[in-house]
C-alpha cells in the first residue's frame, strides 16, 4: 500500500516535473544497487545466526533475564553493524520472534548511530574532543532509551 502511494507520487511527478523525478528515480536506483552487498550481508548474517543460535540461546543472550550481558551484546553488535538502519529491521523482527527484548532492539538500533568507520570523517570536521564526547553521549543515550522501553514494557 505504502509502495503504491509512493509510486503514485512518482507517476504524477513524471507528468508535472519529469526531469526532477527521473533524477530522483535514478538516485533511488543507484542507492539500491549500492546496497545490494549490504542486503546480502544481512541475509547471510540472518541465515547464519538462525542456523547457529537457537531460540533458547537468543533468549539467554538478549531475551528476558539476559541481564547485563544482553545490554553489552546489543551495544557491541549495534556499533559493529554496517549499512543503513532499515536493512536491519527484518533481522530484529526475527530475533524478536525468538525472544529478544524490545529494549535491547532499541539499544541495538541507537548504537548503530555510532559509526566506527566514519569517526575519522567526524574528527576531520568537528575535532577529536567533540567526536569522543558525542559518541560517549550517544552510548549513554542508548542506555536511557533501553531503560525507557524496560519501564513501559517490563519483560
Amino acid at each position: 500500500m505504502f509502495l503504491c502511494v509512493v509510486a503514485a507520487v512518482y507517476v504524477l511527478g513524471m507528468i508535472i516535473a519529469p526531469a526532477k523525478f527521473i533524477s530522483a528515480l535514478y538516485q533511488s536506483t543507484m542507492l539500491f544497487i549500492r546496497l545490494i552487498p549490504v542486503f546480502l550481508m544481512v541475509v547471510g548474517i540472518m541465515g547464519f545466526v538462525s542456523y547457529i543460535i537457537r531460540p533458547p540461546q537468543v533468549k539467554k543472550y538478549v531475551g528476558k533475564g539476559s541481564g547485563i550481558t544482553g545490554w553489552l551484546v546489543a551495544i557491541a553488535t549495534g556499533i559493529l553493524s554496517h549499512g543503513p538502519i532499515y536493512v536491519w529491521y527484518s533481522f530484529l523482527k526475527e530475533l524478536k520472534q525468538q525472544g529478544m527484548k524490545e529494549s535491547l532492539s532499541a539499544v541495538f538500533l541507537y548504537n548503530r548511530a555510532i559509526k566506527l568507520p566514519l569517526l575519522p570523517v567526524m574528527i576531520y570536521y568537528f575535532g577529536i574532543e567533540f567526536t569522543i564526547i558525542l559518541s560517549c553521549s550517544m552510548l549513554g543515550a542508548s542506555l536511557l532509551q533501553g531503560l525507557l522501553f524496560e519501564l513501559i514494557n517490563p519483560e
Partner: protein
Amino acid sequence: MELKHTDQQKNSSATLIGSLVQAFFNFSASMPMLAAVLLLIGLFQTFISPDMITSAFRGHMLFDPLAGAGIGSVIAGNPIMSYILGGELLESGVSLIAVSAFLVAWVTVGIVQFPLESSLLGRRFAIVRNVSSFLLALVVAVFTVVIMGLIQ
C-alpha cells in the same frame, strides 16, 4: 561410520543452506516497503538542497536546536552527508548545539523509514523509539556542548 559422518556433514550443510534460503525469503518479504523507502530517499536527495537546509536556521538559541533535530529526523541519506552539511552549517554561524542535534537526529530518528519500521517491529515500538530518539538528540546535543565548554 565414515558414511554416517558424511551424512551428518550433508545434513549440516543442508540446514545452513535452508537457513540462508529462509532468511532470504524473510528479508524479501520487506522488499516492497524497502523499495518505497528508497524511492522516498531519492525524492529527498533530489528536492532538498544544502542551501534549503542552511536557510532553515535563524540564529535563535531555542529554535535552532529544534530545527536541527527536526531536519535531521526527516532527511535520510548517508551519514557522511550529515557531517559535511554540519561542517557547512557551523561555518555559516549555526550553533554547535543545533548542529549536534542535527547530526544525532539524522542517524537516530527515521521519519522516512517509519512505515517500514512500524510494519516490521510494531507501531508502538516505532513511535516510542523515534519520539524518544528525537528528544534524546536534543539532550545529547546540549550535554555534548556543555561538556566541551567545561573542558576547553
